[in-house]
């Protein structure tokens, strides 16, 4: 599946763009593919055991992935994944 990541500014400079394409059957696979292509993102999207980074929130087509299956959530062609800092609001 081909999906689009929308990255926050703090990560966009590491990927060269705020919008990047990736491939994967699950969000986990898409994140891994992204970090292979953009090695500077390694460790900045995931935590030590591969879980979502503790200071980031991931949304799949406007839905917080914590309400879905987290990184195991299956993807469909054309999905939009928005990544934002968790250090916001309140």
């Amino acid at each position, binding site marked *: 599946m081909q999906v689009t990541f929308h990255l926050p500014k703090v990560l966009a400079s590491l990927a060269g763009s705020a919008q990047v394409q990736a491939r994967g059957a699950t969000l986990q696979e898409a994140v891994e593919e992204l970090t292979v292509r953009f090695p500077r993102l390694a460790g900045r999207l995931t935590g030590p055991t591969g879980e979502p980074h503790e200071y980031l929130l991931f949304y799949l087509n406007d839905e917080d992935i914590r309400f879905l299956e987290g990184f195991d959530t299956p993807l469909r062609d054309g999905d939009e994944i928005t990544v934002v800092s968790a250090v*916001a*609001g*309140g």
Partner: protein
Amino acid sequence: MSSHVSHRRGVHPLFHSSDAACVGPQPGGPANTSLRPLTCSACGTLHPPAPTAVCPECLGPLEPSYPPDRPLPSTTALSRRPASLWRYLEWLPFEEEPQLSRNTGFTPLIEAPILAAALGVRRAWIKNDALCFPSLSFKDRVVATAINAARQLGLDTVGCASTGNLANAVAAHAAREGLSAWIFVPHDLEGGKLVATAVFGAKMVRVRGTYDDVNRLCSQVADHFGWGIVNVNLRAYYAEGSKTMAWEIAEQLGWRFPDAVVAPMAGGSLVTRLAKGFREVKEAGFTGDPLPRLYGAQAAGCAPIVEALHRGDGRIRPTIPRTLAKSLAIGSPADGAQAVRALRESGGWAAAVDDLALVGGIQLLARTTGIFTETAGGVTVAAALALARQGHLKLTDEVVLCITGHGLKTVEAVRSGLEEAPLIAPRLQEVEALITTT
């Protein structure tokens, strides 16, 4: 006051020009700022002042950095300063006294003996931020620090994601300082809060979705437009305003601490900053009292912090808010885990109350203290009652309840539960008839 602080202006001496380049864009630049630098609370990296709340190294939250050897005032010197939150300047993220939002803070601390009896505690006090200026909620504190940071960073547009009180505060502060304001709120906010935002001429946008949807959008807005979104990219400066409530409580009690403090929780920032503020008062040597136990209050329809504390794992599980207390309706609280830690480390606890109880809390506060609070205050009072019944607040305790917003903002919450006023002709016998039937 300024005699205690440096008068130096310019690029912060801790940084060379190459250091500044490692932080994101700085519209207008920090070239003429008295803002304190920022330190990552996760990895400890130091960064120059900037409109960013996130460490570029590890994505952790940034906090203002205070030199431990800075000159500090005595309690006598503090007592001579104007009655605003700026009297605690040395503990705020500015090297010089800011010029905007000068009259915010130093709200009344009012003893509430009838409420103390209802709670079954020795003494009760209301920290009445329903009278915070200019917009009648504690959010004026955080906007006072954030808007000064925005000005010093050269930003001409500010904004926020808000459940209501922050919308009012940003709109009011921006209006009087001549800044443009973009306010983003959930679509179903109370009418009073919409009016009390729009009246200031701010550009208010209602977003289909919950506060958490609005918050996500505002993170993207801050990145895309470079505006100063007070609770997003100005959050490091914004959050420090909250702790002045702790400073004021200590000073207004005669530089001593109460046994316990009860505060509402939405994003969880307030209880973490109360903890920080009380800790700073103690570190300054202004009291030898033990730190107060902190208690958090949430509505049962949106209680991710209370649930994380009660479960014991401290991990926030996001929730879809379903409560009358829209000002506390944050299902994914940014400071949730830190709030759990602050409550636990203080020896306190937390309670969640249903909507019926929160309306009862609003009425109990009104009828025992003469203070009309909005839904968050109702949650705080009802949670204090629950905590007292559970034995967490004790007969020997002196307790402060943090009332964070004015009741006229959410009249819908209590209107239906109040007796309708009788309608009579202007005749004395009709009053006599009413007295007979009452």
